Every structure is written in C-alpha cells, then in structure tokens.
C-alpha cells in the first residue's frame, strides 16, 4: 500500500500565545511551531501499516523554518520519501493547504492519504476531508485504527461516549487520524543527523490555490466571563468542598 502523510505545523500551545498589533493574528514572537501531534499519529499509523504489510510512505509538508528537520525526522522514523512544497502560505488555512497538497501530489497520493484528525489552528474545516473531497475519495475522520485488506481498509472511527464504529473503506481513501495504535515512535537525533547526510528532500513549487473566502476580523484570548474565583491554598479548597457538601 502506498501512503502519503500530510504534515502540518501548528503553534505550540505551551507558549503563552499573544495577539499581534493588528489584533487579528498571533504575535509571531510568541509562537513556536511544531508538528501537529495528530499528524505525528498519522505518520505512526502509516509506518505501522507499512511495517505490517509493505508499501511506501511519503511525507509532504509546506516549506518553513525547521521543516527540513521535521521531514528528516519522518525519514529517520521510516518514511521513504519526503516532499517539500515551496512557496505556499502557511497561514492560508486548510482550504488553500488542501489545494496545495493535492496539486503537489499531482492529484494522486497513493492508495491512502493520512493526516491528523484536526489541528489547533483549523479555522476553515479539516484537512483530511477537504483533501478527500478535492480528490473525490472517501474520507473518514477520528480514526484510531487502520487494518489493511484487499483494495480496502477497515478502520475504527471514534464516536462520542467511547463508542467506536467500524467501517470498511475502498481504496484509494483519505483518513484523519485521531490516534495511532501505539505512541508515535521516537527518532533519535543521531539517526536524524545521519539521514540528513544521506537522504534528500524533494521539492515542488506550490500551485496557486484559493484560500478561505473569509477573513479574520479579530483574535482575542477567550473572555473569561466571571472567571474562576481564585483560591489561596489547599485550606480554602477544603472550605469550598465543604460548602458544596461533598466531604
């Protein structure tokens, strides 16, 4: 099975995110980008599928700072090919990004395209179903397990309440991965550095695509409403619990 994993970088949420002077975007100085953790799970699931039944794994990402390292890391983990799309707007939203990826993959992307179920900055829908729709392929989101079959895959999709629905999906297809069957593997830096010496990253120029047809007018930290009444120490916490009659 030939697979493509779409990788996207998102702001790391451990940072105290701040809004820039325009009031419409994140202050770049407050942002550090990292691989969307769901995409990491998508890559892991693809690698597990490859290890289980053969095939290839291609990873694709938009160019940007540290993207090479991210792609080399994917190669070090076991991906076969890395593709970097030059010139795309990383802030263009998923509508634009889906178009860019589809064009970069020549409208193909192998038997199975996997990416994260969602990302922290998804303001115009999710990448997987957008790519699926552009390619005219079936897509399932919130997938937690993929089992290969003949010309199809059987997937587990998480619904609410811990219930899982099982579907059989004809290939080619697109999946939005919620969690891989195992914790994404660790690529030792030593190996990444070695790969950096020996492997190459293919590049392709971004196609011009249409972005989200609407604009952000304001970005603000959430209104706190009344907010929490801040307690000073465990003693006060005990008093609250007492007042609620639970102890």
């Amino acid at each position, binding site marked *: 099975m030939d697979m493509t994993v779409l990788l996207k970088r998102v702001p790391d949420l451990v940072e105290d995110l701040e809004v820039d002077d325009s009031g419409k975007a994140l202050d770049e100085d407050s942002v550090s980008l990292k691989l969307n953790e769901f995409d990491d799970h998508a890559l892991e699931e693809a690698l597990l599928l490859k290890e289980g039944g053969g095939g290839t794994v291609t990873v694709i990402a938009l160019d940007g700072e540290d993207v090479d390292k991210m792609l080399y890391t994917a190669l070090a983990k076991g991906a076969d090919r890395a593709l970097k799309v030059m010139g795309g707007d990383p802030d263009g939203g998923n509508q634009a990004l889906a178009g860019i990826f589809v064009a970069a993959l020549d409208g193909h992307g192998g038997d199975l395209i996997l990416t994260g179920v969602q990302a922290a*900055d998804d303001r115009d*829908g999710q990448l997987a179903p957008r790519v699926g729709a552009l390619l005219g392929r079936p897509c399932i989101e919130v997938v937690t397990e993929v089992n290969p079959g003949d010309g199809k895959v059987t997937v587990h999709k998480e619904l609410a*309440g811990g219930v899982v629905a099982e579907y059989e999906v004809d290939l080619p297809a697109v999946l939005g991965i919620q969690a891989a069957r195992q914790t994404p593997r660790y690529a030792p830096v030593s190996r990444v550095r070695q790969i950096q010496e020996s492997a190459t990253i293919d590049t392709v120029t971004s196609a011009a695509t249409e972005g989200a047809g*609407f604009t952000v007018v304001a*970005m603000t930290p959430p209104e706190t409403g009344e907010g929490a009444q801040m307690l000073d120490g465990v003693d006060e916490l005990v008093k*609250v619990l007492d007042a609620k009659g639970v102890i």
Partner: protein
Amino acid sequence: MAGDVLVLAEHFGGSLGDITFELLGMGKTLAGEFGGTCTVALIGGSDAMAEELGGADLVLRLGGEELADFNPEPYGEALLAAIEAKAPRVVLIGYTSMGMDLASTLAVKTGRNLASSCIRVEGGERITTTSQLYGGKMDVRSDLGTAPCILSVLAGSAPADAGRHDGAPTVENLDLPATAGRVRFKRFIEPEAGDVDITAQDILVAIGRGIGSKDDIEVAEELAEALDAAVAATRPIVDAGWLPKTRQVGKSGLKVKPKVYLALGVSGAPEHLEGMKGAATIIAVNTDKNAPIFNVAHYGLVEDLFEVCEELTEALEDR
C-alpha cells in the same frame, strides 16, 4: 438579508444527541435574525426523533432505518441533496466526530465557506462567527460576509433547551441520492465495561497532561479515594494507556455532570471542556495561570498539582 438555516440532526443508538437541539436553538435564533426559516435535516432518523424536533419550522427527512447507523458517504450525499433542495444561507453542523466527516467535504462540494470550531454565530447583514482555536487559548472572530456558508459548531456552545419544543413539526421527505458504496458500516464496538461509571459519580478527580508520568496517577487515585470519588482523565492520558478509555471525558469520551469536578493539570482544551462543562462546580488546579480551564472553572488554584493532591488528601484524612 434574508435567508434560511439548515441544521443537521445527529443521532446515535436511536435517539437524538444534545448537539441537535443546541444547533436547533442556535439555528432558530439565526433564522429569526434573517427573517427566514430553520429546517432540520434528519438523515436515517425515526418518526420518534422527528416528533422531538417541534422547534424546527420544517423537518426534512432523508432515508430511514437503512441509514440508522452513521456512514459518512450516504450521509454526505443526503446532506448535499438537502442543501441543494433548500439552498439555506447557513448550514449548522456539529463539530463532532460525525460532523467532522461531513462539514469540510460539503464545503468543497458546495463551494461554500466553512468556519469551524464555532462557539458563537451572529447573523444579520453579514455572518460573523467566533471560533475557539489554539486549544481554547484564542477566540477567533471571522467575517463570512453575505455568501452562503457552513458552520461547524462546538458542542455545548448553546443551551440545548432552546431547541427542545413539543408539537408536531412539519415533515417533508426527500429522496436519497444514490451513493458509490465505497464506505461500508460494519459494526459498533462498545467500550469495555469499566470498573467505574464516571458518569454516575458525584465527584470526579480529573487528570490531564500536567500529571507528567504514570506513577503520578497514584497521588490522584489516593486523593480520589479520600474524596470517595473516581479518577477521570483527558484524552492524552488515555491515549498514553495510563487509564482505560472508560475514564475519558470529552469529545471522544464521556460527558459527565458531577457535583464537583476537580480538574488537576487539565489545560482545558475545547474537546475536553465539551465533556465536563455541565458539572455543577468545577475546581481547576494548574500551574499555568493562563490555562483556559480557569475560564470555565468556578474555582481555581494556581499550584503544583502533586502538592495539592498530597495536602488535600492529608487534610481529608485528618478530618
């Protein structure tokens, strides 16, 4: 500017989900602002479900029993047919596991704009949405202009009661379009019965990423024991295999409404908040004073969760 609203009903196991009524309530308000109607698209639903949708101006039924179980392919085609038939200005879909399969696909197929993770929608001349992004750390306001659009709305963004209305709704049936049958529903897998039913607890001690390592769960468990409570968790804790799935609270886990929800090291991502916003009292302990959990919590404590666990356990045992 006039326009109608189309709401997608969501059901599972023979009954409508809360999200349906939340969206219906929201849809009615919007339709009121537009001076239009609010239609609910009920795909694969039952007569009983239709009767619960009295709040809608129209219930558009597509398919019946044969589509009782969700399948993104026929549901997508059905919803597309509904959109084409009714040409609503706004389509409201839940930002749920089912909704995530449909909203983006339909956005591509209909060429409509899609705003996701919405917690507020303001109608009128232009449509303005507020999306909760970046793990709940930012509210992003978007102007979708006057063009027809699709909005995917976070569960719990509006009260479900506003959408609940008795009365016999007008029902219209719409033929299902044919589908390619590339996705086949096989079965549901129920979660294994857990040792504890966290939805039935008065007190929950919930742990999030702040817990650090599996060993540290012990301190939370000791506290839970002292409180006569159960331990619940966020998705990453369950994904790491530290606690069973039956303890997961949130979008893909369970919805809980305990008297007291003690959130330890829980940052407060929207997916988690969805599952516990209904708790009567929420107490959050986190070292990050900017954690979004403090926005929904009633009480907050900026402290190291281990210290709090240990001190609190001790204080309770001393009583």
